[in-house]
């Protein structure tokens, strides 16, 4: 599990139901309250120009991850985010350890 592994691991949460009005910057800012955010990946749809409504947030510490998971509800601009422990690694990055957990 990402949480237990040491080293350069990023502690990730998967966030869905992100309202269209916010983008990477806002999401990152929101999650900063739980710990230092190392990554924020919010994919946009090239066909529509809207983002896809979900993103990955990587914290630098497990503490940040746990803080984020403990908080409920997550509200950003009046919309309720769904935040869960990431089950899938960032696309493009290999992580066998995590793959086993799926």
């Amino acid at each position, binding site marked *: 599990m990402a949480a237990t592994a040491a080293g350069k691991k990023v502690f990730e949460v998967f966030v869905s139901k992100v309202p269209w009005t916010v983008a990477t910057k806002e999401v990152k800012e929101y999650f900063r309250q739980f710990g230092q955010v190392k990554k924020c*990946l919010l*994919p*946009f*749809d090239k066909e*529509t*120009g*809207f983002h896809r409504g979900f993103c990955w947030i990587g914290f630098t510490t497990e503490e940040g991850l746990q803080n984020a998971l403990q908080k409920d509800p997550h509200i950003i601009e009046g919309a*309720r985010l769904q935040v869960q422990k990431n089950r899938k690694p960032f696309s*493009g990055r290999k992580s066998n350890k995590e793959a086993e957990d799926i």
Partner: protein
Amino acid sequence: MAALLRSARLLKCSPAALLQVFGNSRHVPAAGRLYSEAVGTTRAGLCVQTVPGRLNVNRYNPSVAVRSKQAQQFDWALAKLDSSVRRTGRVTKTLLLRIFHDICRTGYPSGNQALLLLRSCGSLLPEVPLAERIELSQQIWDKLQELGTTYDVSHYNALLKTYLQNEFRFSPTDFLTKMESANVQPNRVTYQRLIAAYCEVGDIEGASTILGFMKSKDLPITEAVFNSLVTGHARAGDMDSAEGILSVMKGAGIEPGPDTYLSLLNVYAEKGDIAKIKQTLETVENADILLMDRDLMQVVFSLTKASHQQHVPEIVEHMRHERGYVPDAMNLCLSLITHGHEETAFSVLKSFTGLLVESQTSDSPDLGNFFLRHCANMDKPVENIVGFCKDLKDSGLHSSPLQFTLQCALEAKKTGECMAVELMRSMKEEGLPLRPHYFCPLFTHYQKDKNIPGTLQALRAMQELGVASDVDTFSIYILPSFPSVDSARTSLKEAGIDVDGNILIAAELRTEASRGNLAGLFSLSNAFRASLISGFRGLFAGLQYFCCSGPTEAPFVYLYDSINVFIESRKCQIGSSLLFAENVAYFLYNLIDSLNETEVHSKEEQIREYFGLLKNMNISISLNIFRGIRNILESYQVPELVKKLERALELKTQYETDMTPAAYATLINLCCRHDNAEEALKLKMELARKDSDAALDAQKYVALVRVLSKHGKLEEAIDMLKEMKEKDVQLRDSTIGLLTLTMNTAAMKGDANTIRRLQETIFTLGLAKPSSNLCSPLIACYLESENYAGAFDATVEVQKQYNQMPKIHDLICGLVEKGDAELLQKVMEFLSQERGEMMMLYDLYFAFLQTGRYKEARKIIETPGLRARPTRLQWFAEKCIAAQQMEPLENMVDMTVKLFECDRDDMYHYLLRLCKETNDWQKAEATWMKMQEENLAPRERTLRLLADILKNNDKEVPFEVPEVKEPIRSDSMGMVLSPAPYDTLIKTLLASGNIEDAMAVKNIATDHIPGFSLSDNANNLLIISQVKRCQMKDAMGTLKGMLQADQVPTQLAITRLVQGLASEGNSQDIQEAEALVKTLGSIKLSSMLFVNNTALAHIKNEDIDSAVELLESFYIQNTENQKSSISFVFRKVLDANNDAVLDKLSAMAERLCNHFASYRAATDLFLIYLDTGRTEEAKFLLQRCAAVNEQKDTMGYFSQRSVRTLTHFSTWRPLQHYYFMRPDMCRMKYCMFSPSLSTGLDKDFSSAKALYERMQAEGVKADELTLKRLALLYKEAGETVPFEEPPESFRFYADKLNKQRSESMEPANN
């Protein structure tokens, strides 16, 4: 399907649309003209479905194993459209187009698909402007024609309907010419709609011409025509004549209906005459005519279109918010917006926001989204939209209306650009944040078209609104539109757009990277080394982005859906084929029962043929029904039955001493059949005297009860019931039916007391659970004597006591007929309280229908809030069909036209089924006409039924009959099905036991996929299914086929096959199977499978000697075989209570033991005895074959297996028996310890301890696992362990034991 099939009545923009509901007229006078055929006489109910419940026998004809692809597609398209209509009351243009293209792609659009599409081009598209709708319908019409769809009059009528609904001006004469040239005869509906078209433009002269046509053709002038004329005169400016139409109607014997008044209301609305509107509404109310909310919405629409929107609130107030109000009101809003009346639409919206449900996706309010979206799509002025947004926000209905509208505007692209920027400006003014990515959808759009001016304009807007563009925006959306980064830079500069230098450089880097321009990247990065990292980061992000936005799932969803639809429809078919088999059997039973003896004899050949036919069709008859048929036939086969009975009685006296209980039972039954209660009772008593334990079977008991109660011997009858309970005689459904019959006999005699006593006894003894059928005789008893008060009291009694409410329909009908309002009121209150108001209303409705009180019935069904209950409607329909009552059924169909969620096709299908029963083609044709009037797209089954009726009467079928064409093809739905879905489907079908369908699918697959064959798994399932059905030949064939195809049968499949062969006594095929399977080698089969089952096959053939010989030689010939068990054979023989065989086998076991020192057979038998609790036999065997006790391995295995598989008591007991039989056999004693210590008994420390002490005293060495367990028990009890605890884990010793055992013996068979 209901929602779609229901006539779409919202916002019929013109009065012409009022044409459609002929069914609404009080059709008593019209009916006289239209439907002259009276209800036929009731025939014997042989072919009639009398059972309520879903019996869609016509929907899926089970004899056609596979339905046509078109039918499937129709259902699929219908389901898609329907779910949309059901949820929203509308269809979106996108959905309609998608279905249109899908239907086209298959290349064979059917007639009813065409109808379905055309039907959806009118008022079901409130979001689409009228002109566009017409364009769409024309496009569909032309395209389908091109693809070879044959249009009949129903299509022309549907096209006319779209013209009318979409206010399309056309020349009716041209239309008629067009029909003529296509050689399609116009019908009444056509003329009606043409009249409507003339009236629409106020052309009374034109309407009169058509009216003349109709008269000359002797077509009835219906309410719809008059309704159009109201509009026509009004539009011609002659309000007096318009109003006068109502009295003309009355003069013609037609009462003005709701639609007539609606026409009137609409013309007043067009004039803005609110006083007249109010007056008319009052008249309507006083006339007890019901206008639906939808009707009033039309008035709202008419008012608004004629710019009298100031009166809208007054109409809105009149609405009752009945079921389906919200979607209807939403559609009204959408239509108003489409027609440019968004202000009025907004006031309507505000009137029902309280009824809207907030979406679950958001915590904050977001009411009115549909409204804002449509405003954005329709490109409404921004200031209006901003006003709506402000209002919604201020009244707390929507938390972020501007953002939402912006999203819609951005999604709308084509039209949204200006609006989006304007909306953002408003947002900025409101102090809402604007973010760079709000512009992305715009840029995406421009980028796709390489629209550089657009891009620059959007950039300027960004700059103007003070939104900083970022690297992402430039690299992803802006730079790619330009041929080069340099040209971009120039253009930007020229357009006066300031760009942060660094951002542009970073963006350039990314763009070069994403273009794969490594050289460019390199040179750039050299120049701007500092930005390199960010450039690569951009590249990386770009790649990730591509991964995320990869191919859509749409194709997969699509495939999945279509397979689902297919499987769904197959399931229905499986269901209906089951139903069908049951019906056939029951039909057969009734048929034979209704024939008298001579008829049976004379028709013997035919009956036999029919049996043969059924067998060929693989329709099996359930056992109960089979028995019933057999009984009847048996009783008939004997000539001169009465003589025989006498003779039998004689025989009895003659051989009294030799009479067995079975002979008595037969005689008693014979007496019962011949209604001889005295003799039957005498025999029964005699039997009881002789053998007090003897019990009759349930059927004979009930027959006895019946005959006894019939002859007033109630107490004796009740004694019989009690005896049944004492002797634990189980009642089956068919016997329970006989009990009902028994009580019904009493009911006919008005003997309520007898019924009550029988009922009470049956239920308190628990012989049968209270059911509606069993409870009905009591009510019937009172109804028979027209004692309604008594019937009601009995109903209350039965409901309170048994929670059943039988015969309620008959009771209410009786009360309605009698006019006993007071009691009726009581019954209704009772019903309402017990089953709810809705059910009560349906009960009352059906009673009114049944008794011909249609006016009252209509009032009931129009109760606001009432919705369709398909099962209840079906119940009544089936009842009418069974009794061939056309009038009530027809009235039901007419009255339910406006009923919420009523499946119209179902309704017409019922009607046609009755037409089919009575072979009434005129009525069938009239029904078809009505379907067109209602603008219904019927299902294929309905069209086929209609065509059937017409063909049977040598009438021309005026439409293309959807034939059962080629079944699903690999290219249906425009895709190629791989073998996998077929295989899955086949497996699913097999798993549900439906071999026929599975094989049908297999044939299709074979036809379409070269070299298709079933997978291993499917074939294995097939073998098992075939064995289950006792199709042993086929099963063998499947096995052979598998082996030829190099497939591997599973152990289970082979085992089942061999066992199946054994139960048929087919030892030869077992041998063959053995030979076949031997070649495989790879599967693990018990070596005993074939030996044991061959032996069983011999036993089945009563060739016990061969079985004994086989088993004996098996053990004698090879001492190794000692390891193989034949307990399977013993168990089967024991289970079958086959004493003779058991004797021989046990003799064999002894022989083997004592003469050949082969102990296995005896040991197996011994253990089986123990296992099945036959202690005495076990003991006896042990005395004769002492050596059995020496078989430690087998015994040990037995004890271990018992531990594993049996509950501790059942295990413990045989072991104890065993132990106490041979207390001297020390070696075996530990057998009893291990299980006792490891199962439930281990909680009992004291006995465990006692056991251990005894073991020590007797010198039994316990194994390590036992010691380990024992140690645990000691420790748990807090005592010191009196021995050294084995050091390893439980698992270790368990494995060790297992290993030892498996080395010393092979597992026993089965």
